[in-house]
């Protein structure tokens, strides 16, 4: 009965394969459960922030921030230990998405890095102040991309996708576009923990659901906020070389010194892709607004609106990866452009008559990092 034997062998193999897949699933689930229960090692930034807001397990929670500013003690529902751990993990992910400060990025950041292409991007490069940027007196800065305000204003209609976008989906879009990555499933702990952190922030700041807050999103700079002299790519290039190149590197590819990231890439393979809202061609107001609000660090609000638009326009013209809905042909084209153009241009532009880049060694101290 060789036919029967063959069949039985096939069946046995099949059952073995399916069984082993299930065993792997059980193991991974157990691993995840174990990580959820493990104590969380906070980054220095998160220790400071969460300590400031008084996050601790308990039956009730009252935000010390609210008490300082209004004198009133607002009692909210308390967080259990599991919730506290989730919030702490979420804070860590925002502050240090790449896991540079973690001993084991898989365990401590849910390996968020695998959903981000390249080793530069971290969430708090755009969501500065770990999603909650304040000035020295504790005022929340308008247009600072606050995650707390994003939560309260979430689930609204999004014109770019043409859908009502749930908060978790908007997070995932960040993974797709701003970090230029693959995407986690919406039920993944990565997304749930960041949501937990955002929700905690909005509780700590006592933000009300669906109210409008100035710190939400980016204060954009339309052309009407300028003298309407037109967005000039060359003007932008000159400004970039003068003010940005020292940290963000030649042609926007970012700068690492002694293995530490000085400033992330704004172009090239480690940067956001063509479908991101940062792309000037897609939305011309967002990147410009971000630059004027936050850059250069330490000299914010020194740039004119037109300057910011010019720099944003210039940066958007530097080659960057294709968006993942643009298909493999465009992806290949962008890969070729990113690999071929920058070295070629560096070669042709290394003539002494052009303004040389300021020496990178003078800016050895990391501007971005986790010692804020």
């Amino acid at each position, binding site marked *: 009965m060789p036919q029967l034997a063959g069949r039985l062998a096939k069946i046995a193999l099949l059952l073995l394969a399916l069984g082993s897949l299930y065993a792997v699933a059980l193991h991974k689930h157990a691993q995840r459960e174990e990580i959820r229960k493990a104590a969380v090692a906070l980054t220095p930034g998160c220790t400071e922030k969460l300590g400031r807001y008084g996050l601790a397990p308990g039956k*009730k*929670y009252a935000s010390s921030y609210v008490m300082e500013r209004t004198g009133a003690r*607002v*009692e*909210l*529902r308390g*967080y*259990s*230990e*599991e*919730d506290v751990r*989730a919030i702490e993990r979420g804070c860590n992910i925002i502050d240090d998405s790449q896991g540079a400060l973690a001993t084991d990025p898989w365990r401590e950041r849910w390996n968020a890095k695998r959903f981000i292409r390249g080793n530069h991007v971290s969430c708090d490069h755009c969501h500065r102040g770990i999603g909650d940027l304040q000035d020295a007196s504790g005022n929340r800065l308008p247009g600072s991309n606050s995650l707390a305000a994003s*939560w*309260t204003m979430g*689930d*609204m*209609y999004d014109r770019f996708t043409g859908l*009502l976008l*749930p908060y978790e*989906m908007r997070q995932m879009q960040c993974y797709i576009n701003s970090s230029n990555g693959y995407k986690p499933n*919406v*039920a993944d702990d990565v997304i*749930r923990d960041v*949501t*937990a952190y955002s*929700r*905690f922030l*909005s*509780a700590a700041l*006592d*933000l*009300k*659901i*669906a*109210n409008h807050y100035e710190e939400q999103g980016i204060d954009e700079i339309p052309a009407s906020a300028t003298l309407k002299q037109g967005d000039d790519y060359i003007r932008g290039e000159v400004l970039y070389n003068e003010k940005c190149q020292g940290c963000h590197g030649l042609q926007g590819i970012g700068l690492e010194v002694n293995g530490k990231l000085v400033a992330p890439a704004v172009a090239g393979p480690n940067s956001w892709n063509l479908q991101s809202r940062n792309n000037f061609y897609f939305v011309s107001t967002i990147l410009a607004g971000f630059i004027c609000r936050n850059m250069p660090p330490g000299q914010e609000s020194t740039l004119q609106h037109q300057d910011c638009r010019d720099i944003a326009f210039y940066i958007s013209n530097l080659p960057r990866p294709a968006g993942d809905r643009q298909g493999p042909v465009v992806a290949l084209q962008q890969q070729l452009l990113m690999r071929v153009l920058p070295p070629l241009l560096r070669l042709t532009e290394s003539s002494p008559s052009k303004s040389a880049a300021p020496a990178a060694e003078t800016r050895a101290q990391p501007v971005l990092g986790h010692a804020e």
Partner: protein
Amino acid sequence: MDAARSHERPSWYAAVARVRGLAALAIIIAFLLWAHFASGIPVFHSDVSAEPGWEAFRSGYGVGYFGEDGQFVRAVQNGYNLFFHTHKYAARFTRKSAADGENSCASCHTVEQLAYSFVNSDRFDPKLGARVSFEDRVRRCYAGSIDGFVPTVYEPAVRDIRLLARAVAHHLQLSEGALSKEN
């Protein structure tokens, strides 16, 4: 094959075939027209239908803050329909019918309770031993409380309940973690 068939086809053969085809088409179209106009079965339209009480709810809970009309407002309206007439709008997920008592979310909850539940969601539930999101809470309700089935997470039957909760939470000016009077 039919042995009686001659070498040449009769001239009316093609005509008969065509007539048959057209007759079939006519029967189908007649059936369609009957189904739409004469059968008495309600025709499905994809727009959100207005239930009585929506206008009062709208003005009472300040849904106009989100606009006169729009994607969000319609979703909230759908949420309203789902909340108060679950058996009709989420018929796929509940075995209850109009005749049953307790056939909608409103039979056990108020919208205020829904809003408080929303801002207190995503927390650890000791009975279940895990953090439970709002969507999962709603799905558990569909499955358990109204004798039904489990909808998918981002299906409108769940999503619009969340948006309704958001709208009411805004009206009540709730913050994240707000406690209701009872707590």
